[in-house]
C-alpha cells in the first residue's frame, strides 16, 4: 500500500491545479467565514425626513412634557441616516439607490400622539418608502427600521404610562405640581377622606350633613382602593409578558462555532469525496486496475489506500482550516486531540463513500461530478431543522441523514470543537460503521472494473 500511496502523491504533485484547489478552497472558505462572523452587520442607509418644526416635538401629558424628538436618536442606532429636507429628496435618494429606504416623520405627529394619549383618538403614522429592486436588501432595511420603530413605540408608551402612574399617585396621595411657573400643593384623595372624616366627627350627632358626607367618604374609600389597584396594573402594561428561559440540553454550541463546524465538515466532505472517487476512477481510466489486482495488490488494499489517501489529505486540510478559523471564532484548543480524531474518522468515512462512488463511475470526470453532485443534497438533508418539516418527512430525512457520514461527522466535530452535546462517542462509532458499510459497497462495485 505504501508504494501506491507514494505513486498517488506523485500524481497529485504533478496536478498542481487540483492540489491548489484542494488547498486554496478550504482556506478561502475559512477566511470568508471568519470575516463574516467577526464583522458586525452593516447599518442600512436610510433617507430621513422629519417635517416636525424645530422645538415642536413635545407632547404634554398630565403633569409632564415628553420630547419625541429624543427617540430619533434610538432609531439612528440601527440605520445610517441620510438627512433630507423634502419628500421629493427622500424618494430620489431611494430611487437612485443612494438609500435603501426613506423614513418620513409627518409634521402633525406630536399632535396625533397627544390626541391619542389624552382622548384615545388619533392615528400617529410615519411613512416608510422601500426600494423593491433587491428583495434581500429590502428585507434587511425593512427589518432594521421596523425593529427600531417598535422599540421607539414601546419607549414612548412606557414613558406615557410612567407619567400616568405618577399622576395617579398624586391624585391618591397628593403632592406638588408646577403650573404657570408656580408650585401648587395637591391635596389627594387620602387626605381629603381624612379631612372629611374629621369634619364629620365635629358635626352634631343629628346633623343632616352627616349622611351626605358619609356617602362622600364611602366614595373616597372606594376610589382609593380602586386607584391603588390600578397603579401596578398600569405599570405592568409596559412589560405584560416576561419570558422565563430554561436550557435543557446542557451547554449549547455558540452559533459562530456551529457555523464553523458546518463549513469545516462540508469542505472535508467535498475534498474527500472528489479525491477518493477521482483517484479510484483513475486506476480504471489508466487501465492499471487489472494489472494491479492480478496478484500485486488485493482490491481491498487498493480501496483502503484510496480511503487513507483521500481521508488523510482532506483531514489535514480541514485541520489547517479549523486552526485558521479559530483566529476569529473561539474553539477549545484543549480538545485538539479530539479535533484530529473526529476529522480523521470523518475523512475515513467520507473516503469510503468516495471509493463507492468511484467504483460506480468509469471515468475520473464522471466520478468527480457524481461526488460533487451528491455532496450538496447530503449536507442539505442533514441540516434541515426538525421543526421545518412534517413528522413523516422528518423521519425520512433522518433515515437518509443516518445513512451518510455528514450528520455524525458534524456531531463529532461539534463536540470536539466546543465540548457541547451530543457526546462524541456515538458519532465516532456511527462514522466507523458507515466506513465499513461503504467500503463493502465499494468492494462490490470494483468487481466491474476488471
Amino acid at each position, binding site marked *: 500500500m505504501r*508504494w501506491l500511496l507514494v505513486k498517488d502523491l506523485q500524481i497529485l504533485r504533478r496536478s498542481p491545479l487540483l492540489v491548489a484547489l484542494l488547498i486554496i478552497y478550504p482556506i478561502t472558505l475559512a477566511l470568508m467565514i471568519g470575516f463574516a462572523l467577526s464583522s458586525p452587520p452593516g447599518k442600512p442607509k436610510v433617507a430621513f425626513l422629519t417635517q416636525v418644526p424645530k422645538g415642536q416635538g413635545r407632547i404634554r401629558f398630565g403633569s409632564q412634557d415628553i420630547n419625541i424628538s429624543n427617540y430619533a436618536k434610538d432609531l439612528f442606532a440601527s440605520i445610517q441616516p441620510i438627512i433630507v429636507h423634502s419628500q421629493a429628496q427622500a424618494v430620489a435618494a431611494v430611487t437612485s439607490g443612494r438609500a435603501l429606504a426613506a423614513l418620513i416623520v409627518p409634521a402633525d405627529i406630536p399632535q396625533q400622539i397627544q390626541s391619542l394619549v389624552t382622548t384615545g383618538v388619533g392615528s400617529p403614522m410615519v411613512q416608510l418608502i422601500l426600494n423593491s429592486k433587491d428583495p434581500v436588501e429590502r428585507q434587511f432595511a425593512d427589518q432594521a427600521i421596523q425593529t427600531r420603530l417598535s422599540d421607539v413605540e414601546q419607549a414612548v408608551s412606557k414613558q406615557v404610562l410612567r407619567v400616568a402612574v405618577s399622576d395617579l399617585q398624586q391624585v391618591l396621595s397628593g403632592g406638588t405640581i408646577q403650573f404657570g411657573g408656580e408650585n401648587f400643593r395637591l391635596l389627594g384623595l387620602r387626605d381629603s377622606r381624612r379631612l372629611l372624616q374629621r369634619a364629620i366627627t365635629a358635626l352634631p350627632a343629628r346633623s343632616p350633613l352627616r349622611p351626605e358626607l358619609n356617602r362622600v367618604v364611602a366614595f373616597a374609600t372606594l376610589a382609593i382602593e380602586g386607584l391603588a389597584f390600578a397603579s401596578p396594573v398600569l405599570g405592568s402594561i409596559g412589560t405584560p409578558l416576561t419570558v422565563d428561559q430554561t436550557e435543557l440540553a446542557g451547554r449549547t454550541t455558540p452559533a459562530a462555532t456551529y457555523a464553523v463546524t458546518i463549513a469545516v465538515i462540508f469542505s472535508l466532505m467535498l475534498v474527500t469525496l472528489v479525491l477518493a472517487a477521482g483517484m479510484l476512477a483513475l486506476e480504471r481510466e489508466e*487501465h492499471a486496475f487489472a494489472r494491479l489486482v*492480478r496478484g500485486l495488490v488485493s482490491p481491498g488494499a487498493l480501496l483502503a489506500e484510496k480511503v487513507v489517501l483521500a481521508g488523510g489529505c482532506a483531514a489535514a486540510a480541514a485541520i489547517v482550516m479549523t486552526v485558521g478559523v479559530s483566529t476569529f471564532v473561539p474553539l477549545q484548543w484543549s480538545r485538539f486531540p479530539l479535533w484530529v480524531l473526529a476529522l480523521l474518522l470523518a475523512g475515513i468515512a467520507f473516503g469510503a463513500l468516495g471509493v463507492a462512488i468511484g467504483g460506480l463511475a468509469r471515468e475520473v470526470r464522471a466520478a468527480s461530478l457524481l461526488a460533487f453532485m451528491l455532496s450538496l443534497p447530503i449536507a442539505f438533508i442533514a441540516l434541515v431543522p426538525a421543526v421545518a418539516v412534517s413528522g413523516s418527512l422528518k423521519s425520512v430525512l433522518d433515515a437518509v441523514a443516518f445513512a451518510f457520514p455528514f450528520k455524525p461527522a458534524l456531531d463529532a466535530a461539534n463536540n470536539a470543537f466546543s465540548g457541547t452535546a451530543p457526546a462524541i462517542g456515538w458519532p465516532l462509532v456511527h462514522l466507523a460503521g458507515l466506513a465499513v458499510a461503504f467500503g463493502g459497497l465499494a468492494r462490490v462495485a470494483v468487481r466491474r472494473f476488471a
Partner: protein
Amino acid sequence: MPTTAPTRQATVAARAVTKRFGDRTALRDVSFEAYSGELLAIIGPNGAGKTTLLSILAGIQAPTGGEVSSPGRKVGWVPQQPAIYSKLSVAENLRLFARLEKLSDPDSAVERMLDHTDLHERANEEVGRLSAGNQQRVNVAIGLLCEPTALLLDEPSASLDPRQRERLWGFIGGLAGRGTTVVYSTHNVVEVERYADRVLVLADGELLFVGTPGELGRAVGGDPRDFEAAFVRFLDLCGH
C-alpha cells in the same frame, strides 16, 4: 521467422475452459497447451474471446468452468491498452511495478528494462507525453519486470508503426529464444505467419484450430503463400 522447434514442456495450459457472462458464452471448452520457448498466436474475428482467454490465463478473470495452469506470479501480462500511469515518468512507472512485484533490487530491474526497451533517454519523461509506440514499450517492459516464464500479450503491436513493430517482435523473439513461453493475440495475420510457431483459431468462443500456420493453410487448400486468404476461408468453412 519461426523459431527453432520448441521443447515439449507445457508452461501454460487450459483444460475445457468455459466462460459465461450471464446468458452469453464467451468461451466454450477451450483446451490447449503452450510450451517453453514457443510463440503461440491466438487469432479470430472480433468478439471471438481472445482477450477473455488471455485474461483468464493471466489470472484477471476466473473461468466459469475448466481450469488453467500457469507458473503463477511468473506470468507476465501485457494488456492491449497501456496499463501505466500517464502522470508518472517511464522510470517511476517501472520502479512502482518493480516494488509491487517485490523484486529484490527494483532499481537494477528498472535499469535492465530501460536497456531492453531502449528508453534510457526518455526515462524521466512523463509517459503521457510519449508516443503511442513508446507507451507500448513501457507497457511491455512492465510485463517483463518479473522475468516471466510465460508472457501473455493482448494485441501488442496494435498501436505501433512498422519499424516499432519489427523492433518489438525482435525483442519478443529474443525472449522466446531464451525459453520464455509467449502467447499473444493479434488481428494481424502477417505477424502470425512470420512470428508464430503455432496458431489458435477462436471464433464465437470456440477453439476451431490448433497447429502451425502452414498446417492451417494446408487444411483449406488454395495458395499456400496467402495465409490471410487461408484464414478467412477456414472461418467460412467452419460457418463463422
